[in-house]
C-alpha cells in the first residue's frame, strides 16, 4: 500500500543525486522476499538429503533434525543389500538407459523431420506440418489405453522399450527444431547447393553444427521428461528389476511405509542426476522452457 502512496510523489525527487529512498526500500523488500522464498524452496530438498543419512530412529523422531545427529549410510546399505524386492541401483540404470535412449531418438528423428519440414518442398507438406503440430494440443490421456494395448500386442510390457519408444513420438521436438531451422539464414545452404553438396551432407555438415545449442536443449528437455515420467512406467512395468526410478519410489513408499530414511535415499538417487544436469546446463533448460512459452 505504501508504494502506491509513494508513487504519487513526483519523480523529480531523485534529482538530488542520491538513489531515491523508495528505490532502496523496494530493493530491500525484494531481497527479503527472494530470500524467504529461497528458504521455502531449498529447505524441503535439504531435509530430503539429511533424512537419507539418518538412522531409522532419528528419521522417525518427532523433533526434526536438519543435520543428522548420527550420520549414517544405513539407508543406502539397506537399498544395496535388500535389493531383490527394491533394487534401487538397478532402477537407476534402467532410468538412465530409458532417458538417454529416448532423448537420442528424439534428437535424431526430430532433427531430420524438422529439417524436411523447414526447408524442403514436397507434396502434403502443409497438411503434415499442421497435423504434427496440432497433436501438441491433444490431451495425452487419450493415448494411454490404446498405447497399453499396443505395448501388450508388441510384447513390450514390462520391458524398457515400453517406456523409451512411445514417448519419443511426441511432437515437441519437431516443433522446437522446425522453429529453429526456419530462423537460420539460408545463405550457407545455398552456397553448398551450388557447390554440389547433397542435402544429407548439408544437413550433417552445416545445419547440425549450427544447431548444437538447440539440439542440446532438446536433448536435456527430453532426458528430464523421461527421467521424471511417472504415469506410464507405473503401469507398464511390473517386476521389481524392470522398474525405472519414479515407479520404484512408489514401490519403496509402499514397502517401507515408515522407514523414511530408505525412501529418501531412493529419492536422493532419483534427484542427484536431474539436479546435477540442471545445475550444469541451467541456461539451456530454462531457455528451452522460455522458448516454448514465447512461441506458444
Amino acid at each position: 500500500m505504501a508504494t502506491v502512496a509513494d508513487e504519487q510523489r513526483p519523480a523529480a525527487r531523485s534529482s538530488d543525486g542520491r538513489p531515491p529512498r523508495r528505490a532502496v526500500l523496494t530493493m530491500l523488500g525484494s531481497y527479503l522476499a527472494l530470500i524467504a522464498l529461497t528458504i521455502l524452496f531449498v529447505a524441503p530438498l535439504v531435509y530430503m538429503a539429511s533424512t537419507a543419512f539418518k538412522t531409522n530412529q532419528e528419521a522417525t523422531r518427532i523433533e526434526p533434525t536438519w543435520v543428522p545427529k548420527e550420520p549414517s549410510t544405513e539407508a543406502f546399505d539397506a537399498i544395496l543389500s535388500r535389493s531383490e524386492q527394491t533394487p534401487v541401483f538397478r532402477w537407476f540404470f534402467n532410468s538412465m538407459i530409458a532417458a538417454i535412449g529416448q532423448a537420442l531418438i528424439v534428437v535424431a528423428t526430430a532433427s531430420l523431420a524438422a529439417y524436411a519440414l523447414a526447408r524442403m518442398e514436397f507434396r502434403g507438406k502443409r497438411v503434415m506440418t499442421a497435423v504434427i503440430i496440432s497433436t501438441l494440443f491433444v490431451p495425452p490421456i487419450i493415448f494411454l489405453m490404446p498405447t497399453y494395448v499396443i505395448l501388450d500386442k508388441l510384447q513390450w510390457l514390462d520391458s524398457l522399450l515400453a517406456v523409451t519408444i512411445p514417448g519419443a513420438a511426441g511432437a515437441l521436438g519437431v516443433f522446437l527444431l522446425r522453429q529453429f531451422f526456419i530462423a537460420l539464414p539460408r545463405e550457407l545452404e545455398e552456397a553448398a547447393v551450388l557447390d554440389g553438396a547433397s542435402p544429407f551432407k548439408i544437413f550433417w555438415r552445416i545445419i547440425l553444427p549450427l544447431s548444437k545449442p538447440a539440439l542440446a536443449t532438446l536433448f536435456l528437455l527430453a532426458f528430464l521428461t523421461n527421467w521424471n515420467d511417472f504415469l506410464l512406467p507405473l503401469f507398464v512395468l511390473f517386476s521389481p528389476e524392470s522398474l525405472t526410478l519414479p515407479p520404484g519410489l512408489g514401490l519403496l513408499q509402499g514397502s517401507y511405509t515408515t522407514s523414511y530414511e530408505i525412501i529418501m535415499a531412493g529419492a536422493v538417487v532419483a534427484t542427484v542426476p536431474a539436479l546435477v544436469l540442471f545445475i550444469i546446463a541451467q541456461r539451456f533448460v530454462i531457455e528451452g522452457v522460455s522458448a516454448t512459452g514465447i512461441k506458444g
Partner: protein
Amino acid sequence: MPPLARASRVRTPRRAPVGGGALAYLFLAPYLILFTFFVVFPAVYGVWVSFHSWDLLLPNKPWVGLDNYRNLLDTSTPAGGDFWQAMKATGIFSVFSVPLLVVLPLAVALILNQKFRGRNFFRAVYFAPYVLGVAVIGVLWTLLLDPNIGVVNFYLEKVGAPQNIAWTTSLPWAWVALVGVTVWWTLGYNAVIYLAGLQDIPGELYEAAKVDGASRWGRFRHVTIPGLRPVLVFVVTITILASANMFGQAWLITGGAPGNETRTAIMLIAQEGLQNFRLGSAAAMSFVLAVFLMVVSLATFFAFRERKG
C-alpha cells in the same frame, strides 16, 4: 534478416529448395514411423477400444457401441458415479491451483525482472523443484506432511496450529496439501515463462509511461499486462491443462483419500483401465475428459481474446 537476404529474395522469387520429393520423405520417415505407430494410430484405435467391452484378461471383447459413454452420463452406474466424482475432484483442484499458479509466479517474475545481483541464482533456485519430477515430490512431501513426525506439523504446532493435522487423510487439508505441493513444485516453471515474456516488453514503453506520469501501478496495468497478454493466455492454458492432468501428487500423497474425495480423473482412468482392466470404459472416460479440456482451453482462449477488442 539483414537487407542482403531480402534483396536476394527479390531476385529469385522462388527459392530453390534444398531437396524435395522422395528425399524429403526419407528425412521424415524415421519420425513418421514413430508418429504413426504411437500418435496417429492410438488416437484412432482408442476410439475403437471405447466402443467395446475391452477386458485384456478375457478372450472376447464384445462390441458395445456407445454403452461405455452412456454409462458415464448416467451417474447411477458405478462407472458414471466414479467418473463424475473424479471430475469434481479434478475441478476442485483446478479451481484452487490455477489462480495461485497464474498470480504467484507473475509476482515472482516481476521481482526477478528488476536488475540486481544474483538474479539468475534465484531464478534457478525457484525452478529447481520442477526438474525433480512428481515421484520425488510425492514421496518427499509425504514425509514432510506426515501428521505425526512431519516438519510441517512440527512448526505449525509451534505457532499454535491444531495438533496432528491429517494432511493426507482429511478434508479440507488434503486439498490444501495437494494444491500447496503443486504450487511449490511448478511455480518456478510458470515464473520462467513470465520472465521471458516480461523481458520481451520494450523498455521504451515503460520510459514513455513514466514521462507521462504513470504510477507504478499504472505502468503495470497499462504496459505490463497488455504486453504480457499472449504469455498470460499461454500460462493460463497450460496451467489449466496441467491441473486437469494431475495424477502423481494424488497417487503418492493422498492415494485419493479420504474415501475417493481426492481421486482425480486421470487417477480414476488409470485405475479403471490398467488396474481393473476395463480398458473400453477407461478409454471412453479419457475421451470425455479430453473433450472437456478442449472446450475449457478454447473458452479461456476466447475469453482473453474478447477483452482485448
